[in-house]
């Protein structure tokens, strides 16, 4: 950069009319070796602005902020993990299936009684022998026991799942 141009820029600078690019040109000029003798006196002033921009070690801030964020993340993660949502949904679906099964059995039973006088041959239970009824009852009990068993199983699985819940370290 020519001395004349720099001198002009300097005048603009003192008048507060330089833009960022022009100010950067001045800084570069004063950082160089060929500073004109008449401008030499300003060299350290412009060098100061560059020195003042140098980085300081602020690692303690990094550590503190990251530790804080990490602590927050662990809390958040733990909260989500304490809800074995899938297991709950599975249990609910099983209960629903079981109740539908029972409901369907009962209604189909009543239907058969209400239709007992029609011509359609359907099962009405009137001429059923007691042995058969007992057998059916046994089967029903077994089916219900099976459902109950499955529910217990699900519950146990859920408890195991909960006990396995751990905080998961995510950031690092």
């Amino acid at each position: 950069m020519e001395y004349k141009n720099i001198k002009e820029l300097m005048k603009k600078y003192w008048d507060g009319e330089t833009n960022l690019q022009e100010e950067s040109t001045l800084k570069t000029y004063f950082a160089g070796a060929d500073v004109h003798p008449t401008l030499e006196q300003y060299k350290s002033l412009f060098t100061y602005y560059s020195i003042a921009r140098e980085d300081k070690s602020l690692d303690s801030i990094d550590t503190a902020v990251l530790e804080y964020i990490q602590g927050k993340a662990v809390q958040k993660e733990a909260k989500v993990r304490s809800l074995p949502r899938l297991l709950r949904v599975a249990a609910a679906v099983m209960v629903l299936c079981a109740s539908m099964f029972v409901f369907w059995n009962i209604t189909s039973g009543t239907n058969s009684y209400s239709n007992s006088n029609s011509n359609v041959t359907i099962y009405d239970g009137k001429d059923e022998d007691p042995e058969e009824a007992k057998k059916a009852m046994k089967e029903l009990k077994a089916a219900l026991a099976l459902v109950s068993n499955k529910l217990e199983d699900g519950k146990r699985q859920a408890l195991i799942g909960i006990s396995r819940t751990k905080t998961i370290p995510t950031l690092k």
Partner: protein
Amino acid sequence: MTLEEYTNEFMSLKQRLYRLSIGIVKDTMVAEDVVQEVLIKIWNKGKEAAAIENKPAWAMKMVRNLSIDKIRSKHYKTGAIPEGYDVVNKTHTPETIAQSNDTVNTIQEIMESLPETQRMCIQLRDIEEMKYQEIADILGISIDQVKVNIYRARNYIKKMYLKTDNYGV
């Protein structure tokens, strides 16, 4: 806001935030606290922080406000007065000026003797290289006021600097 975004957009500003704060609180420990507090505040703002258009100016404004709060708090004042008193004394003793033949120190002392707004304007412009609009946003003043403050500060620095320089020679 992901951790990566946060690190790129805000953590990377910490040097500038620190320099801004130290100019106000004049205490390295307090300035570090201010920057840390502001960075945590920003993280807690999450989406709101991610949506800010000019993130550096926004963060710097927060740092400036918190720094001013710190020096205004009663507790800090009692501790800070002797320190500031010391600095003023040093500037006015010819002996100390002669002893510390360090130009950087001299410029720093001139900067510190500037009125608050002028000093902030010079720091944000000549050191941090920010636009007039950004400086106006951070300091809560108009662009014209920023320009006037920079003009006055530069001329004050020039005058004082040439004076000490001549004495030195």
